[in-house]
């Protein structure tokens, strides 16, 4: 089923002649006004290979992909498809060649069904009418075949963001019959789902599909790819055969310096209990009892939809609890609004930056200061200087790659947007920081910085709840690790007292 187009005819298997480039870039370049997002690049993709692309946030990876799929138009340069120059001016044209992509931010229609999304733009039609039943059946068959346990008839908007990502993958797989690009596909996936995805990618490769794979997780790059290209600051700095390189080399090419340790972990003596829940229940989770002490990171691990986000949303006053109690520094509290939570000293960086974290069409400085306007307001007005200073300091501290505090957040690359989501809470003076998937889409260098930042917060006497679906992250950082499954807190481990496998099986529930 994989690699078949929606009408069911088998795609002609492409015979991989290893030396013929299926797609070749010559001097491809993209400018956004003053920003030089991609400097003239030459690169050839060999038919049938898995080609990884790595680079820091804002290095130009997504830009390259958007150029190849006709989403944006190039400033200059040429693209050759099987030796012929092509325009690739519209997505439609790219799809005609069999080029498709799973883009970084999930771009599908929430209001349409899964099946409708999978066949969007290429519907099955008979006598001018849509064959809805047939499409739903086919979509379901494809999903089942891929091993994705997802229904085809539901509205896309009712799935979690990770599940949406899988649908996007399935969709691209049935349409990108020759050349398929994945832009950070695992950012929202858990281990099991990532494993399903890798299986899919390998099957596609067997069918002769050329694959471009972008990820910030280097172990994935080594697990999957044949060759890897490195982008730094819009410049293509090199291409390596994966088997002939190593992590250290890639990192030094990416950030132009070496990085001895990504997971920066410091241990602090546990202080007083900041927050404690007793049998807390709410929408999406029940009976959770845990506590966080100053100087401590409590990690929450689980599969997508395990209820971790729901749990912290209740701590933060976004949802009302339905049972149990919350104690803040020993006193029972009822947190009814986000503002109340903030006033207690709780900060929350939510998981979806686009939906929950950022005012995307407002300036960087505005977003950074949004939670602290009440603190810097004087006589009802926000003084310019305070506004400016605080924003500039955060931008410098977090090394946000932006033209300034006045730039709109939407002009930042994904990883830099994530820095804003976190950065807006650092000025707030909170004692308990809740980070929900803080490193989604963040490059290794920045990740290391964020981990250092966590340590700094701990040193200042804060406590942290860290949610991550990326096991190594919580595993390496959490002083205490809770495993969630179907809304319940099913296991608790002290630092490094359980193996990855144990934790994973607790999360899956086998």
């Amino acid at each position, binding site marked *: 089923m994989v690699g078949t187009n929606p009408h069911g005819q088998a795609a002609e298997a492409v015979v991989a002649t290893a030396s013929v480039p299926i797609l070749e870039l010559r001097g491809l370049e993209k400018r956004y006004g003053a920003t030089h997002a991609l400097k003239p690049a030459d690169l050839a993709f060999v038919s049938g290979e898995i080609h990884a692309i790595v680079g820091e946030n804002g290095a130009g990876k997504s830009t390259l992909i958007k150029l190849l799929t006709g989403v944006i138009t190039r400033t200059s340069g040429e693209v050759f498809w099987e030796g012929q120059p092509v325009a690739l001016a519209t997505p439609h044209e790219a799809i005609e060649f069999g080029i498709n992509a799973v883009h970084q931010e999930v771009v599908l229609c*929430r209001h349409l069904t899964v099946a409708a999304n999978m066949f969007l*733009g290429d519907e099955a039609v008979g006598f001018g*009418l849509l064959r809805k039943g047939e499409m739903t059946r086919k979509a379901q068959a494809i999903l089942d075949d891929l091993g994705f346990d997802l229904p085809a008839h539901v509205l896309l908007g009712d799935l979690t963001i990770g599940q949406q990502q899988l649908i996007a993958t399935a969709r691209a797989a049935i349409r990108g019959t020759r050349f398929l690009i994945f832009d950070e596909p695992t950012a929202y996936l858990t281990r099991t789902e990532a494993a399903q995805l890798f299986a899919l990618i390998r099957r596609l490769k067997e069918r002769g599909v050329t694959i471009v794979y972008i990820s910030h997780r280097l172990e994935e790059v080594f697990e999957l790819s044949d060759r890897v290209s490195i982008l730094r600051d819009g410049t293509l700095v090199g291409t390596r055969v994966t088997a002939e390189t190593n992590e250290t080399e890639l990192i030094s090419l990416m950030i132009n310096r070496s990085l001895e340790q990504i997971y920066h972990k410091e241990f602090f003596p546990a202080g007083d209990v900041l927050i404690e829940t007793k049998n807390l229940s709410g929408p999406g989770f029940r009976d959770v009892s845990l506590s966080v002490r100053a100087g401590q990171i409590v990690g929450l691990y689980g599969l997508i939809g395990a209820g971790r986000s729901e749990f912290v949303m209740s701590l933060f006053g976004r949802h009302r609890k339905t049972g149990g109690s919350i104690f803040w520094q020993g006193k029972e509290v009822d947190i009814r609004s986000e503002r109340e939570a903030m006033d207690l000293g709780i900060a929350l960086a939510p998981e979806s930056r686009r939906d929950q974290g950022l005012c995307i069409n407002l300036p960087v400085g505005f977003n950074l200061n949004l939670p602290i306007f009440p603190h810097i307001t004087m006589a009802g007005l926000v003084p310019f200087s305070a506004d400016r200073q605080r924003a500039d300091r955060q931008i410098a501290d977090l090394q946000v790659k932006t033209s300034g505090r006045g730039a709109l957040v939407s002009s930042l690359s994904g990883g830099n947007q994530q820095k804003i989501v976190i950065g807006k809470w650092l000025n707030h003076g909170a004692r308990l920081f809740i980070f929900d998937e803080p490193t989604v889409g963040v490059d290794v260098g920045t990740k290391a910085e964020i981990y250092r930042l966590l340590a700094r917060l701990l040193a200042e006497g804060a406590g942290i709840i860290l949610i991550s679906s990326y096991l190594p992250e919580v595993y390496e950082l959490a002083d205490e690790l809770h495993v969630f499954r179907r809304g319940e807190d099913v296991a608790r481990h002290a630092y490094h007292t359980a193996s990855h496998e144990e934790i994973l099986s607790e999360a899956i529930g086998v």
Partner: protein
Amino acid sequence: MSTDTKTATVARKSSANWLFGLTLLGLLLAMCIVLSLTTKSFLTEANIMNLMRQGAMIAILAVGETFVIITTGIDLSVGAVVGFCTVIAAWLLTHDFSIMTTVIITLGVGVAIGMFHGFGIVQMGLPPFIITLATLTSLRGIGLLITNGATINIVNDTFTEFSRNDFMGLPNLFWMVILVGVPAYIFLHHSRYGRYIFAVGSNMEAARLSGVNVKLTVYLAYTLSSTCAAFVGLLLAARIGVGNAMQADGWELQAIASSVIGGTSLFGAIGSVHGPLIGAFILATINNGANLLNVNSFWQRIITGLLIILIVYFDQLRRRRG
């Protein structure tokens, strides 16, 4: 996994979707029953026929408007297009064009206006609110210029009688609702471009990335809306027997209200064809009922406003509980 619970709720929602249409219909029926009991004249053949005639034109406008709203747009010009097209039709008929030619040219004018809106939105990048507001203003001006601020009499009796006559026991005007509604339903819910209208309204970027011709889809939605309005212009010209550019003032708001009462979301991507039709007849029934009950015309306005709030509110509630 959570998928199971989600699937369940979703399944309930999507099955409630059809029920929802039914329930609005239920509301309409309930109103009719109450009026039948409280007035002796509501449930008479003559009155039901009147009601069908009175709701028909807004119903057709609301269907056209719905296409546009689903794409997250808005078409403020429909009332003006109706008025303008009464003028075009009247002018053509008084200049001895045949009815057939008149109908074709008038609908062609509708198509042209819709294309112009598409052009403004797609090519010039104007907000739909602005371009259709501008056409509203200009079209009234052009219509007034053509008639020199007066009215054009239509002397063609075949044409004017059409709107008064019946066919198989139903008013011709109501047949026109069916004539527009059935193809519109098939188009919106069962054709490829109908689906693209939803896709564009849901996520324009996603639609574009999927190879959907977004521009064409936008053109299509506005053209359909203006063409429906031109068609209503023909019906109105037949009904009032004159061409007058100031007619159908404010009908755009009634069409939009009908559409929203019928469950269309102004944020796009949610809507149907049957909903707006029911919405339009609910509004017509409110007016008809108020007249029959001899409600003071000022109270009638107040009640209409309150009922709109109530209907949409309960509709939201039901959908939320769905």
